[in-house]
């Protein structure tokens, strides 16, 4: 027997159903009708998020062989493996929208899709690994926690998994820094130096100021994005200041001060020129990151081919 068939709804009716789902704060699921701009915007956002996780393995990956103890090496390895996993969750979510995983990687290595600007900065010392966990992953958590309520179901569910794991990332970084701060004056200086270099790029992770972010309104109307760039940035600053005090480091901003009336921290002007330079390919490590990702794709292609051949041979038996 077959299910009763319904009259095919019109585009207007589909749009109305979509709008009602969003208005009721329910989730859009993969096979639902959705506006083409909603789909394309999500694919772009999820793909770039995935690319950021994959490229994000590199800065810390540079320290895997130089970690100072077996414990630190195991922790760092687990963290870098998590980043790969986060990339996989996100590519999986992008695929539910009709994107193709291999195609997205091609677009990344061909420069047609981007990743977060933060990963174009180098990790000069081991303290950078700690600061990335503390500040970069801390900023990522600020961005990602609201995405757990994103209107697109598979994206929201992927973010829930990611957020559970990010907490480990931030805490291991902060613990690493606390350990170094209990060490020699040279080690404390290394931590301060790393904080000096990563603080401002971390603030840039939240994107341009709200009055320079015209896409945000549509994204928020669709429930893809839940808070404005400036609101999330402010939250991050407010969280980070007491953490810096507990750690015993100085955040490199002479204008950073508590506003007694609002209870929030005022901070200095962000150098958006630098941000735009880095995002458009002129950061310290852009070239290196993409070159290495391309090499990983091409040099490891034989593994993919060998596994395919093995599977075909066993299927034929």
């Amino acid at each position, binding site marked *: 027997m077959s299910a009763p068939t319904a009259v095919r709804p019109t585009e207007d009716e589909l749009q109305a159903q979509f709008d009602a789902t969003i208005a009721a704060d329910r989730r859009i699921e993969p096979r639902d009708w959705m506006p083409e701009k909603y789909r394309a915007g999500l*694919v772009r956002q999820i793909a770039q998020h995935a690319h950021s996780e994959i490229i994000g393995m590199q800065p810390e990956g540079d320290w895997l062989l130089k970690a100072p103890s077996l414990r630190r090496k195991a922790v760092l390895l687990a963290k870098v493996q998590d980043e790969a996993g986060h990339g996989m969750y996100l590519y999986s979510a992008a695929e539910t929208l009709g994107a193709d995983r291999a195609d997205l990687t091609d677009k990344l290595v061909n420069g*047609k899709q981007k*990743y977060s600007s933060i990963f174009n900065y180098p990790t000069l010392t081991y303290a950078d690994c700690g600061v990335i966990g503390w500040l970069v992953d801390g900023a990522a958590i600020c961005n990602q926690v609201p995405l757990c309520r994103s209107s697109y179901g598979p994206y929201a569910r992927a973010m829930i998994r990611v957020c559970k794991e990010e907490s480990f990332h931030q805490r291991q970084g902060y613990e690493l820094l606390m350990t170094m701060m209990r060490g020699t004056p040279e080690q404390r200086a290394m931590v301060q130096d790393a904080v000096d270099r990563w603080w401002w790029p971390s603030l840039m992770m939240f*994107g341009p100021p709200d009055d320079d972010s015209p896409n945000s309104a549509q994204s928020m109307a669709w429930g*893809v*994005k839940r808070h404005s760039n400036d609101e999330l940035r402010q939250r991050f600053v407010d969280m980070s200041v007491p953490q810096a005090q507990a750690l015993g480091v100085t955040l490199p901003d002479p204008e950073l001060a508590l506003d007694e009336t609002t209870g929030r921290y005022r901070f200095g002007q962000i150098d958006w020129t630098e941000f*735009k330079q880095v995002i458009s390919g002129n950061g310290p490590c852009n070239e290196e990151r993409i070159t290495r990702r391309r090499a990983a794709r091409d040099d490891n292609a034989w593994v993919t081919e060998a*596994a395919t051949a093995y599977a075909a041979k066993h299927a034929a038996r």
Partner: protein
Amino acid sequence: MTETTAEGGHGAVPTGPDVPSGAHPSPSGAARRDWPLYECFVRGKRGLNHVHVGSLHAPDDEMAVHAARDLFTRRNEGVSIWVVRASDITASSPDEKDPMFAPAGDKVYRHPTFYEIPENVPHM
């Protein structure tokens, strides 16, 4: 100037209209598209159902299970994994107003709250 937003979790990325979305695949990735898509289900602990956790690509069933272990159970999230080729799943239409589910809509007598029982009747 390409517009940038910070929607993608790990920070700001360009999102202006000139940035390709990737929603429509180009043919260049075709060679690596041979691996089928698997949907993965994990039983969190004894006594619970297997629950859908996501998908991955693998060359065959066995390698799909191993990949699912690495991807979804790095922190003891499961005691058992099912994988199934996405192409082997048969699904109802996704629409919430799907007439497929209409027969259940008007049968309120299938729910315990349909029946009024006096307050003084215990254990009901």
